[in-house]
């Protein structure tokens, strides 16, 4: 099999901080890491590789030069090859242009490695963009069948995959022939910590850096110019000011006052 995992480097969530003075997000000095949802995608790819012999796991990302670190991190966690779409022409892409570029990259990976792509795995969404649209978008461009919100890969072979989809009201069990795409949720596995050998391999790995021209991208479909949507403006939502503090000299009094207030606000 040949599995391609799409990842993104995003600001590490543990470092998301709010500037107390302005109430805005502090981005300076924020450490970048693999989008946490993508860690589950990488782990699932590596687990499938451990189940199905002769499987190659490739990882692809689109982003600035420093995003190469995310690819190396993925290799240290068990992926075999990394590919980096890196070109200023990709900048400012929305989900349409991002999924277009990624799928062109995936086609190029197939061509370069000579190994036919069997499965593409994405995380459920990124923690900065939060859309969840890129995975299914890539499937649309590649004309692969896809299932999102996958919480379990029940069966996988060279030719098909059977997955469990997490729905609001239960589980859907779905089968697809390969090639196909899945987007996974965090319930699917517990990602491993990088291994020492993986880390050493990641340091030495040669990661090709491809431009828009390298992947033969249609210039009208990439970057800001190729994005149907644009950010017209952005702003910080007005911060809430602290509300009423329930007073009372004893806990009993406080409880009484709170319930009275809740009734007054018609919340009970």
């Amino acid at each position, binding site marked *: 099999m040949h599995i391609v995992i799409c990842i993104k480097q995003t600001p590490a969530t543990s470092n998301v901080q709010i500037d107390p003075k302005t109430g805005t997000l502090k981005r300076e000095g924020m450490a970048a890491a693999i989008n946490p949802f993508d860690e589950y995608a990488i782990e699932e790819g590596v687990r499938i590789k451990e189940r199905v012999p002769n499987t190659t796991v490739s990882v692809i990302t689109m982003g600035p030069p420093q995003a190469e670190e995310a690819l190396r991190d993925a290799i240290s966690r068990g992926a075999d090859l990394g590919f980096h779409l890196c070109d200023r022409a990709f*900048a400012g892409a*929305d989900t349409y242009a991002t999924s277009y570029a990624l799928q062109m990259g995936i086609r190029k990976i197939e061509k370069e490695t000579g190994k036919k792509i069997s499965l593409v795995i994405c995380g459920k969404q990124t923690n900065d*963009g939060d*859309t969840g649209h890129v995975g*299914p978008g890539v499937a649309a461009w590649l004309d692969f069948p896809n299932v999102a919100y996958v919480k379990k890969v029940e069966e996988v072979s060279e030719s098909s995959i059977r997955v469990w989809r997490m*729905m609001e009201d239960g589980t*859907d069990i779905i089968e697809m022939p390969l090639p196909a795409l899945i987007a996974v949720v965090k319930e699917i596995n517990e990602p491993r910590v990088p291994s020492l050998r993986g880390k050493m391999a990641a340091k030495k790995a040669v990661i090709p850096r491809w431009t828009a021209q390298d992947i033969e991208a249609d210039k009208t479909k990439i970057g800001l110019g190729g994005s149907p949507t644009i950010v017209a403006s952005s702003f*910080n939502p007005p911060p*809430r000011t602290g509300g009423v503090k329930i007073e009372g000299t004893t*806990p009993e009094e406080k409880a009484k006052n709170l319930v009275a207030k809740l009734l007054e606000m018609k919340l009970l």
Partner: protein
Amino acid sequence: MANEIFILKERCTGCGSCVKVCPVNCISMADRPKEENVRWKKLAVIDVNKCVFCNACVEDCDKLFEKTKIKMPNPDFFHAIVMKKEVVNVQIDTASYKGVWCFAEQRHSHLMPTIYELLHVAKKLSLDLNEDLSAVIIGHKVTSHAQDLIEHGADKVYVLDHPVFEHFVDEVYTVALTELIKKEKPNKLLMPASIIGRSFSSRVAIAAQTGITADSTELSINPKTRMLHATRPSFGGNLMATILCEKHRPEMATVRPMSFPRALKVPGRKGEIINVPVDPSKWNIRTKFIKYVPEKDETIDITGAEKIVSGGRGLGKPEGFKLIEEFAKVVGGAVGASRPTVDAGWIPYRHQVGLTGRTVRPKLYIACGISGQIQHLAGMSSAENIIAINKDPECPMFKLATLSVEGDLYELIPLIIQEIKKVKDHK
């Protein structure tokens, strides 16, 4: 040609105004090299990798030139940022796209309440545009819902009723909806940001070659351009962005559940029901639906809950959730949890609220022993009313809370439960 943006060093005064307007914080002020012999000490630096080429800084810098009261030794200041943006010409006759559409999600032939929220907000959009409001329902044995949708405000209902739609399969729903879009050419299309909506809306957008905004929480029409302004939170609600789709139609958006009230029902309201013929034989469908397994869990799902009682690290021990469950039961709400309690294995993940858990927008959110780390706030800060119960009066949750009670939760909660029961009995 790629997009370019750069600073004309000799014109930059280092005033820092552009830093403030940049929506993605890609501009910073650096110390100007000493040898440059310019009276301004600072210089703006743009990180092109982060820049989204929105033009805000360029406009700001140009405007400053007009506004400035500082006497310049030489008028050649400001106008310091140069942007060269690649222009892609798309020729779409936007005027031929008419009407506001809402996708009516159904599960097992039952309508999901999200459609009523969509109809509520879409009604206003359709009135502003003076165009029809339509609902599209795809499913099996769903035709009977059409009148209900009309009574909730739809002028037209497109019904695609066929056994092939019995279960949600991305490919099937995508091709059906895309065919309809291409034929009917709607102007705007709203879909719920539910699991189904999030799954296939982006496939539809790409198949229909248009743009989509995910997870909108505010929607409006610009009266001049007649374009949809879709505002969505990112970074867990710390940054709001308004998104436009200028040249492609339909303008699509998914709408975060619980962001809008439900449309009111007007019994007997009249509208048009269009039964769309479905012929799956020419579709290339590869996915096979095997079966549906219902969730066994009896507890209320937090995502759609109107009331949530959440427990955090302040509980101190897993048994604390027994008290939270009891509290939730009395209030008639679902049980939520902060990440540390889920990580510690006190409660299953499906209860987790926050950046890596579920996002909720209940009417009432009671946070017990949750200090209010930013990751948690990201999942619940848009709740209508927040009640905080905590020992620490300085905790961030108190700053956000509508009502806050300081004290030991093990002391307070049983008393509150008792008090609510008393009031209920009284009624």
